[in-house]
Every structure is written in structure tokens, then in C-alpha cells.
């Protein structure tokens, strides 16, 4: 009972005083500092008032202060092996290896990466979308592989564009990011073409892509078929090219993203 009373007292204090204190404090804090402040901090002493000259907005755009997070979703896993790419190579294994390598390259460039799968385990599509959506990512890359076609297939969600609202329908949440996803896809497309890797663009209905609340692209690798010469997906050099090119595209996306309002 004591715990409940203390909790009630804290809650009462928080409900009544915290908005007043937080409001007084936030009104005088710079915009970038406000974003990092919890909405209510019951029982804490408000910070001292900041001088008026500190309230002017920073010279850099607001996005520059936010953290650039990339989510990498290695598809399939566990009993769901995905496509059989060869006698010894499964889609789930290849995309997991690529995910780890892409994360390493991006981390080396100072980009914070969240992965949805770290091992050969079955991760439900719902959990993947939850992970991505909690990360508030600036880019979500879903990795796939197939034996059909040539080069890289870039897919964005086929759900209809919807206006951005606070609450989005789970199954079609990606609709609010349709335009940004197309821009991200275009960024990767440019980088791939620069690296002379054939690209096919398309839209598809795919889970968990449709539920991502971030600019999201499904990157599907296929064997490289160029001038009659076929490079298999198991070729390490080809894999390196894909990873390096995707990382370069994401870095370029980071630069563009910082310029966006």
C-alpha cells in the first residue's frame, strides 16, 4: 500500500506540477534541446532559465540535430529459408551475411544501424516492423535474394500514398512514406547504375515493408548477367560491390536527409 500511495503521490505531483515546470523550462529551451527532453519528469528540479539570446533557432536545419538511424532487415530466418539460391546457399543465410557486412560498413562511417535479425532465428514480420518503427529510422533496407533476373531489384511498397498522421493503419503505414521511399529507391538506383549493376525497379505488396514507418526499400539481389557472363550470388567480389554501393547510397541519402526540413 505504501508503494501505491507513493506512486499516487508521485503521479499527482507529476500530473499537476510537471507540465507547469516542463512548460516553463521548455519555453526557454532551444528547439534541439527540447526534442531530447522527456515530456514529463516528475520530481525533478527544472533546469535554470536560459538567457533570451539562447532561444534563437540554430543556424543548421532541425534534422541536423536528429540522429540518422538505418534499419537493416535481413529477410526470412529459422524454418523460413527463403529462396534456395544454390545447393549450398539459402536466401536467409546470404542476406544475414550481407546485413552484417552492411552494418559494419555503415557503422565505420558513423551511421547508427539497427538490425532486425542477428542470427538464424525466426523473427515474425510483426516484430520486424516493430523494431524498425521504434527506431524512428531515416532509412529501412529489407534485404532479399533470388535466382531470377539480373543485378539488383529495388522494390517499394505498393500501398497507396496516405497523408502523414499521428496514428497510421498498421497494414498500410508505409503509405505515409511512399514519396520518401521512392526517393530512397532512386538514390540506390543511381548508385547501382554508377557501379554498373543492372537495376530493376518495381512496387510490390510485401510484409513487413508495408508496415514500416520510415523510407523503406526492399533490395533483392540476383545473379549478375552481363554480356552472357553470369556472376553467381555466392561470388564474394559481387557481394562486396553490392554492399559498398548500398552503403554509398545510404551515405548520400544521409546528406540529402539532413537538408530536408
Amino acid at each position, binding site marked *: 500500500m505504501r508503494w501505491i500511495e507513493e506512486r499516487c503521490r508521485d503521479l499527482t505531483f507529476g500530473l499537476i506540477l510537471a507540465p507547469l515546470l516542463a512548460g516553463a523550462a521548455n519555453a526557454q529551451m532551444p528547439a534541439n534541446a527540447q526534442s531530447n527532453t522527456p515530456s514529463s519528469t516528475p520530481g525533478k528540479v527544472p533546469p535554470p532559465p536560459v538567457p533570451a539570446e539562447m532561444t534563437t533557432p540554430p543556424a543548421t536545419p532541425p534534422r541536423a540535430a536528429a540522429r540518422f538511424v538505418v534499419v537493416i532487415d535481413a529477410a*526470412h530466418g529459422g524454418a523460413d529459408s527463403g529462396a534456395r539460391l544454390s545447393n549450398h546457399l539459402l*536466401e536467409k543465410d546470404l542476406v544475414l551475411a550481407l546485413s552484417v557486412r552492411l552494418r559494419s560498413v555503415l557503422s565505420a562511417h558513423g551511421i547508427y544501424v539497427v538490425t532486425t535479425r542477428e542470427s538464424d532465428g525466426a523473427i515474425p514480420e510483426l516484430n520486424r516492423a516493430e523494431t524498425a518503427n521504434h527506431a524512428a529510422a531515416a532509412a529501412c533496407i529489407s534485404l532479399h*535474394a*533470388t535466382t*531470377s533476373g539480373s543485378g539488383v531489384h529495388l522494390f517499394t511498397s505498393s500501398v*497507396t500514398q496516405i497523408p502523414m498522421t499521428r496514428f497510421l493503419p498498421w497494414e498500410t503505414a508505409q503509405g505515409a512514406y511512399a514519396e520518401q521511399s521512392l526517393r530512397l529507391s532512386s538514390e540506390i538506383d543511381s548508385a547501382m547504375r554508377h557501379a554498373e549493376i543492372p537495376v*530493376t525497379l*518495381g512496387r*510490390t505488396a510485401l510484409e513487413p515493408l508495408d508496415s514500416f514507418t520510415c523510407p523503406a526499400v526492399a533490395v*533483392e539481389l540476383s545473379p549478375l548477367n552481363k554480356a552472357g557472363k553470369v556472376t553467381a550470388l555466392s561470388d564474394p567480389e559481387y557481394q562486396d560491390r553490392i554492399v559498398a554501393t548500398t552503403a554509398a547510397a545510404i551515405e548520400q541519402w544521409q546528406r540529402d536527409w539532413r537538408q530536408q526540413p
Partner: protein
Amino acid sequence: MISRPQRILFWTLLFSSVLMSVVLLRMRERALDRLLASGETMPLNPPPGTPVQNVTMMMANDMDGSLQPGYQNLALPVDANARAHVILQHLILNYARPNSKHPIAANKGVNEIFFINLPLEANQVLPGTMAVVDLSGSFVEAHPSGIEPETLTLLSIIATLHANFPQISQVRFLVDGQQRDTLAGHADLTRVYLASDSPGVKHL
């Protein structure tokens, strides 16, 4: 007391009944085998002299992710559902040919197609017709896994249906009569696909 001739008659009749049951069961099995064999070779060859119609097939190409129209002369049944069935069977047979640009192992592709007139409910404003395509489990099992091949197969079926039946505005897929999550691990089969951008039709 039962007389001897009556006993002989009884046992003869009983033996005849058992024998006839066995023969009937065997004949039934043979008929079922014949029926299944005829189902695997669908579409059936048309009777001689049947007029042919020009049919549009939207053929997928894995190398560039495109759909290209192709034209084929086919003898089609009068019933719309049966006509759609024959068209899709030929479409899938085309993918089974050597040098296909969207190879899918030859198999029975479609169990059945049926059309539903929209709207299903009074408060809906979805015009046109919904085509429900019941794919065969063997076709789905044999389908190559991947976002691109699966998406192209669905788009090819949808576009072919819409090209030959313009009233079709939506397409829904089943597998052996049941809803299934994906075609072969990627493309979502739980949703309703739009076949046209006609006004009033919303993406679901």
C-alpha cells in the same frame, strides 16, 4: 430348417454382392484417375470447327521486370469463368515453355476462377467485378521464390485478366481454396489486388 438349395442361393447372392462391390470400387478408382489425368492436361483441345478468338497475354520478363503484351488465338468456352480459366492455363503453359523469360515449372496452374459482381455490400462504392483466382498448390510449390518473380506472376495474371475482361477491377488469390500468406515466401496473397484505376476504386 433351411433347405440346401436355399443355402446355396443365399451364399451365391452374397458372393455376387461382394464381387460387384469390388468391381464397382475398382471402376470408381479408374474413373477418378481418368478425371485427374484430364484435369492435368487442361485446357482441353477444342472440338474441331470451333471459332478461335484473339486473346491478349501479358507476358512477364524477369530480366527487365516488364510485362509485354502477346497475342494468341484460342478456342474459348462461352462461360466467362471457364474462358478465364482457359486463358490463364495457356498463360501458365507459356511460362513452362523452353526459353521462357519468366520460367515456371510446368504444372496445373489454376484450379478455378470465379467472378463476383461488386459492390459486395450496399455501402461500398467499388464498381466492376472481382475475380477470385484459385491457384493450385502444386503450382505454388513449384513457383520460384523471390520478390520479382512472384510479383511478376501476380501482375501478369492480373493484367491478362483485365486485358481480356475489362470489367475486372479487383483480383483476389486463393491457393487450393484457402487463403495463403504469400505466393512463395514474398508476394502478399492476403490482400485484394487492383486491376484498374477506375474511379471509385480504392487501393486496399
